[in-house]
């Protein structure tokens, strides 16, 4: 590995990074928040949600998969990109059945928090109201597919971190679903409540039983600060 640093700009601000680093990682290190959902530190970038889309030298790229390059200009926080990002987040809401007001993940949910940060109060796209299944067969864990955004974190974590294969996608297109490694039920798999895969879902699709609403309102992850605040060095810049 060469020790060379790479210099580029994000919205006009000069950022430095190491060769091979992704735009998202370099931005994080520089205290610049690029919205993301599927990405999770420690897993291979999945590149599926597309919320992290930025414009690199005029071309759209996913910041979580695109390596930095010398002298490039990256646009992140422009009106145009924010519009497309909101549209994508909107799509996730109408694609599933997300009832934040009585979801136990509320306040700790990355999708909800991102919607708030982007200023989405209600989606503009028509709700699809899909028929989804719920699997509560396991004594400690349940899956509610109504809320799954197909980010792939559980699939990857089970394989790459837990050394198992509890979760995998089945179906194609709009029929794509998260499935478990058994003919039907989660309880027939070798999943364990301590698996990383069980503790990584950005939304309320994989949850542990008997833990709902444990954290009082006001103390939840995103009650006081919008999502991304931890990354931003200058929190005043958040509008």
């Amino acid at each position, binding site marked *: 590995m060469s020790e060379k640093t790479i210099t580029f700009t994000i919205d006009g601000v000069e950022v430095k990074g190491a060769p091979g680093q992704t735009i998202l990682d370099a931005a994080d290190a520089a205290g610049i928040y690029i919205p993301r959902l599927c990405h999770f530190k420690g897993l291979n*970038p*999945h*590149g*599926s*949600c*597309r*919320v992290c*889309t930025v414009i690199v030298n005029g071309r*759209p790229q*996913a910041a979580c*998969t*695109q*390596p930095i390059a010398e002298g490039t200009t990256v646009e992140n926080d422009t009106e145009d990109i924010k*519009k*497309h990002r909101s*549209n*994508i987040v909107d*799509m*996730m809401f*109408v*694609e599933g059945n997300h009832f934040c007001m009585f979801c136990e993940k509320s306040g700790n949910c990355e999708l909800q928090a991102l919607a708030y940060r982007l200023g989405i109060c209600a989606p503009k*796209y*028509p709700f*699809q109201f899909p028929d989804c299944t719920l699997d509560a067969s396991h004594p400690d864990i349940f899956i509610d597919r109504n809320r799954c*955004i*197909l980010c792939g974190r559980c699939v990857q974590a089970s394989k790459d971190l837990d050394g198992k*294969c509890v*979760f*995998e*996608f*089945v*179906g*194609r*297109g*709009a*029929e*794509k679903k998260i*499935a*478990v*490694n*058994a*003919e039907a039920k989660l309880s027939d798999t070798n999943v364990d409540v301590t698996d990383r895969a069980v503790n990584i879902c950005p939304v309320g699709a994989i949850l542990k039983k008997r833990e709902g609403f444990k954290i009082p309102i006001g103390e939840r992850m995103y009650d006081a600060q919008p999502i991304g605040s931890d990354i931003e060095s200058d929190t005043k810049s958040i509008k």
Partner: protein
Amino acid sequence: MSVEFKQTIKEICEACGNDRSLMMDVVIATQKRFGCVSNEAMDLIAENMNAHRVEVEGVVSFYSFLSPDPKGQVVIRLCNDVVDQMQGVQAVAEAFKKELGIDFGQTTPDGKITLEWTPCIGMCDQAPAALINDMVFTYLSTDKVREITDELKKHGDPEQIPIRYGDGNNAHDLVKSMVNNGLRKKGAVIFGQHEAEKGVKNALSMSAVEVIREVKNARLRGRGGAGFPTGMKWEFTRAADGDKKYILCNADEGEPGTFKDRVILTERADLLFEGMTIGGYAVGSDEGILYLRAEYAYLRAFLENVLKERRDRGLLGKNACGKDGFDFDIRIQMGAGAYICGEETALISSCEGLRGDPKNRPPFPAQKGYKECPTSVNNVETFCAVARILDKGAAWFSEVGSQGSPSTKLLSVSGDCTNPGVYEFPFGMRVDDLLKKVGAQDVQAVLIGGPSGQLIGSADFERTICYDDLATGGSVIVFNSKRNILEIVGQYMDFFVEESCGYCTPCRVGNVLLRNGIEKIIHGQGEKADLDYLQELGETVKLASRCGLGQTSPNPVLTSLKNFRAVYEAVLIEPTDGQQPSFDIKAALSVSEDLTGRKSEIYKD
């Protein structure tokens, strides 16, 4: 679970060396043998192949020719492409339903015959067409449906249905198909007279670097649609680190209205394999794979035999073509019904025995492709062009065509014209000249490049077909003035909804929303704001999608909004009561009315 069943699955897996990367072959063979890949089969395959059951399920549920539920020994797949719709497939569909007594998606009560829809099978010039198991039936009519179903009811074997064989190799003993080549214009390059194996012989007398230089000098650009310079792609693949490299041929030909590779595979298979051999030599590969779409399975035995003959003649295998140290062979990988697998990284996933999801880039296939090795994926026609370049030289190749797009291109023309078929023309031909040549009159619109291309109207007919103006992988579809543009757009959006892999959000969800938005307008519930809505939605899908499918799938909507805006405006309505036109108050109230058993006092009939 019977012992015999277990044993058969075991044998199927063993025939593939229990090699996980050959999962496609295993599930395809299982489907063929048992009419489904059942839950039990998935368990057994996982066990034998050292995979997880849900991974097998992930693969089976991805491809539309595979299914966990039993299908009949005979599966009829009627093509519902837009061109087939134009040629009266609905009447044919009704006839099938009536004769078989079942609906689409169903199997006859005796479990013998399944009836399904399928997207473009590459027979638009002979529509309406259907696949019955691996066999193709073209120019269907209600009478023919009756004959076919009568036969099937008698003996249940599609191969016993009497057919008249098509021209050329379609009548070959190993093809025996009623497909016609429909080759209307032979150009000098792909379908010109040529001396067999001269290209590869010349290539092997040069260094690999010289071969690549010749391809670069010819300024050959990929014929699959994207138009990437082939010489450059090979140079990257050659330069990439790795001892093992691969050369892949993309014969997925799934873009609606494209059927030119079908004719190459039928009539120029040797030229194609010659080109692949040159490619293998150029990039430093000893293994080529031809990825053949399931719809072209009727050509498989024929192509396998061409490969065998080449092996027998020493053109493939150890010291291929007599070149010491050049060991090169080619295998065929069958697809199983997925348009997305034509996308080069999805094609690689499928060859690896995975779900046909595209991969993240970088790394590009030239760096890390099939099995993480440097790989070049090229179109069927591209390989043929390479063979001709090495035969006659770069200068000869680029004699015709335009500056940015040298040489000829195969166009597959279908729709409203008297002479649908395959034409080899120099690049740079004007659309109106082409329309004259194919016998198209009263033309309202032309779709250049299939639904992922552009829908243009007469204002653009002076434009030319080439990479720098109107690019196409081959598909040209003509619509006369009687056709309903909005319905065509809606049908193509149905296609993309069906064929999106679902990996990324904008393509998975956005195409559904686009389709629904078009339907709303077709149903006379659209207002002006809906056009802006579709425009912005389409732009988001284009901008943010992960691969070429979503980056182009909004094109039917976006290019028709641009070029046929009046068609939209003519059916919009202006709400007068302050309510959205799509809102039907009576329908909205009906559920509560049913529940309460009372009718609304205000909104009465």
